[in-house]
């Protein structure tokens, strides 16, 4: 049934947040259904007409790459999923997607692989059939596998000049010793180069993870009434698997670490300060408090940003990075410094800000501004069916239901100055800290 979501209703929903924390921020009607084989189906009516976004979320990412020499495999496998089946070889798959005028692609992150497509609602059945087939019956030759590994190497190469890629690599490798977050989603370059030899492992990977219990089918937009029945029709025979990876637990870091690396091509010096930090949560509020801290203390509205970027102009970009993860990950602050001589000063300013969070209670008003920013940021971001589906896929990967969005935003509303101080003291501690610097050290020759 179509729910009317007028401008006025959305206004009421949002306006209510400040006074009634129990009001839900996710304004769209949704249904979550687990079918018999363990596949979860989430449908969300967005009220934007005609268009449907299909996001198939597989709870496998580089986090699952537990075996040595296999880093980057979840991402490689995302590529292999476009290599066809007996019933729908790649050219047939392409032709059907093309006929639907679909915009389609996929991505892999630390925690998930997502296959997404946007198209007119009348094509939903054809596309559900197509997608169900490749998730169950993917089939490719070793030659095709080897060829595709070179496209992945090409993807690594295209990002090679980006210093943030390098920073990500060195911070993870330094801060983590056990957990698979030690490597990026792209993987260690030596593993990427060796991918052509891993055909057999590819078969094993598909058998382990491309199973209904790892997967959620999200249908978002102008959802036809028979959407769930169609999923059951095409995905209902998919066999459940049994594999459970043993993801290593990261032990306490125990002592502060530093890493300094040079970058092969000119860049401004980059300084980052990172701390091991809790996983995504919608019950305990520590991770929500850290989100609030990241905006309060390190966003463009923070005192530190105003000082370093606007007033002193020693830094040309600064941002916090604390991204939701299924397992404990990192809370980071990254600053790009205009001159090398100021790197240590900038680092010390970040550390002094952390110390201040631990020693002084933050005022109420700026905290309320952060909450408002989070609330309106969510509302402003929900501006199309694909945007809503993209946000949903993230939270589905975290907790399996849109309800986690409401719970998480309710947690933001409850954050107090005491929470900020408590979490800063517990999490942003020296023994869990990694400081990384990256700069270009010219050796002459080509830039």
């Amino acid at each position, binding site marked *: 049934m179509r729910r009317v979501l007028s401008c006025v209703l959305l206004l009421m929903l949002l306006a209510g947040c400040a006074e009634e924390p129990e009001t839900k921020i996710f304004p769209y009607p949704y249904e979550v259904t687990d079918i018999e084989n363990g596949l979860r189906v989430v449908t969300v009516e967005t009220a934007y007409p005609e268009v449907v976004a299909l996001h198939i979320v597989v709870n496998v990412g580089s986090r699952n790459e537990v075996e040595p020499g296999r880093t980057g495999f979840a991402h490689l496998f995302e590529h292999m999923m476009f290599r066809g089946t007996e019933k729908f070889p790649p050219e047939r798959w392409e032709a059907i997607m093309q006929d639907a005028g679909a915009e389609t692609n996929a991505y892999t992150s630390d925690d998930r692989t997502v296959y997404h497509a946007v198209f007119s609602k009348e094509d939903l059945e054809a596309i559900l059939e197509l997608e169900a087939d490749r998730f169950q019956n993917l089939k490719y030759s070793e030659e095709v596998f080897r060829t595709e590994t070179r496209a992945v190497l090409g993807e690594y190469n295209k990002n090679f000049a980006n210093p943030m890629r390098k920073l990500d690599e060195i911070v993870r490798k330094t801060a983590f010793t056990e957990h698979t977050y030690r490597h990026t989603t792209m993987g260690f370059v030596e593993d990427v180069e060796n991918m052509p030899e891993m055909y057999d492992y590819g078969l094993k990977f598909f058998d382990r993870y491309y199973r209904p219990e790892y997967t959620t089918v999200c249908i978002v937009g102008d959802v036809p009434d028979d959407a769930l029945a169609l999923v059951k029709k095409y995905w209902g025979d998919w066999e459940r698997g049994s594999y459970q990876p043993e993801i290593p637990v990261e032990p306490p870091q125990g002592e502060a670490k530093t890493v300094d690396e040079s970058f092969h091509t000119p860049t401004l010096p980059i300084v980052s300060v990172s701390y091991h930090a809790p996983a995504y949560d919608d019950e305990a509020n520590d991770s929500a408090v850290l989100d609030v801290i990241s905006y309060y203390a390190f966003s463009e509205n923070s005192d530190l940003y105003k000082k370093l970027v606007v007033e002193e102009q020693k830094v040309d970009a600064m941002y916090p990075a604390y991204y939701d993860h299924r397992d404990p990950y990192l809370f980071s602050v990254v600053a790009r410094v205009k001159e090398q001589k100021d790197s240590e000063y900038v680092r010390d300013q970040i550390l002094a800000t952390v110390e201040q969070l631990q020693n002084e209670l933050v005022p109420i008003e700026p905290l309320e501004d952060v909450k408002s920013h989070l609330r309106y940021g969510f509302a402003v971001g929900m*501006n199309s069916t694909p945007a809503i589906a993209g946000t949903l896929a993230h939270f589905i990967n975290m907790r399996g239901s849109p309800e986690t969005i409401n719970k998480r935003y309710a947690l933001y509303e409850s954050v107090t100055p005491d929470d900020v101080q408590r979490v800063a003291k517990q999490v942003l501690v020296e023994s869990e800290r990694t400081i990384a610097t990256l700069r270009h050290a010219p050796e002459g020759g080509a*830039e």
Partner: protein
Amino acid sequence: MCRLLLVGLILIANALAAPPEMLTLPSESPLVAFRILLRTGAASDPEGKEGVAALTAAMLSMAGTKEKTYDEIVEALFPMASSVSAQVDKEMTVFVGTTHVENLEAYYELLRSMLLEPGWREDDFRRLKDEAKNYLRIQLRSNNEEELAKEYLFLQIFEGHDYGHHSMGTIAALDKLSLDDLKSFYADNYLQGNLVIGLAGCYPERFAERVQTDFAKLPEGATRREPMAQTVSPKKLRIRIIEKDTRGTHIALGFPIPVNRSNGDWPALKLVQSYFGQHRSSKSLLFQKLREIRGMNYGDYAYIEYFPSGMYQFKPDPNLARSQQIFHIWIRPVEPRNGMFALRIALYELNKLVEDGISAEDFEATRRFLGKFVSLLTQTQSEELGYALDSRFYGIPPFRGYVKDAWTGMTVDDVNSVIRKYLRATDLDIVIITKDAAGMRDAIRSGQASTIEYVSPPPKEILDEDKVIGRYPLDVGSIEVVPASRVFED
């Protein structure tokens, strides 16, 4: 029934007798979107002041007003999670922002004062000038080789033309720019007659009129410009190789086309481009030949309009409308050992397209795809506004209907005649970024056949075709090696 959809495009240019013109898209969305567009941009940078259009726009969108410092503006915008961003291209400058209708009053007051009452502070100017220079030297030249190849191709094709410098400027000119230069540019270009105000969403009654009245405080008149000369294509292949420490070899190539959206042949050429190299689509011909069959790289596409930041986005941003466009091919990085082969296969496939045209079957499939895909280009109010403003620039009806109607009445013969009329695989510009620039130059000059190395040999018919491609003649007119450190300097 729920109707968050846009209820239609209403042109209220006549609501007031005088400009500025407005495009409004009232809807029931609680989000209100602004696109405040000026018909001016980097093509209007005076000689020696390259970058003044972009820096002026930055001084409006990322600096203080008469009343408020930049800090105070950020502080006021932050709780609304809204911003004002500027996009400056050759002939358009647009200020874009979206806010929740609950915050509309406060947001609009900031937006209005930012655009109409700039603060022109020295410290903001110093910060934004540094930012512009760092963008050119570090972010673009050093840290983004894919964008560098494409941007440099435009500079090469439009050398000596009004489009002949990057929209952000040159380092030499930026160094010399003063605040007075920006104030002059603002006074000469931020005129009522250059302005179109785009507004969408669930804004209150009479709000649009209020915006229009406020912006009528800008001086009257419009900038008069002489028609731009057409750029001249090189004879044969004009090749520049940027020498840079990189893992891959990057290639962009193209030539100017006398076709933009206002030309009746544009929809047919758009269809050709989609078939040959639809952006980020694995169905297109170039992608199939280079990546899917040969595993050479991550992707390969073709364009008939400027499309910056293609490595980050699937759809082009609106409001990059230009009188003069180019046809171009973007080859994402290949392994250097396959660089020569990549160059040859791009030209070989382009030549084949020109000689053989499109089959009836491919024509039909591409037409079906585009007929639906075009609806996905305007998913948000802001995009819808942007396309409407672009259609106004080009003097065409609303975009979706315009192209769909054109495709409906089209035949494969129409398309193939457009290919013959506008496309070619010679007399064009090529940009290559690679580490061993001298080696690449010598290999091109030698005319020796190129080979490709595979991790898994493809079928015999592909290997046979590789031999033909490897010998594809390169009719080189000029070839020059450019150190990366020189790019964008002057």
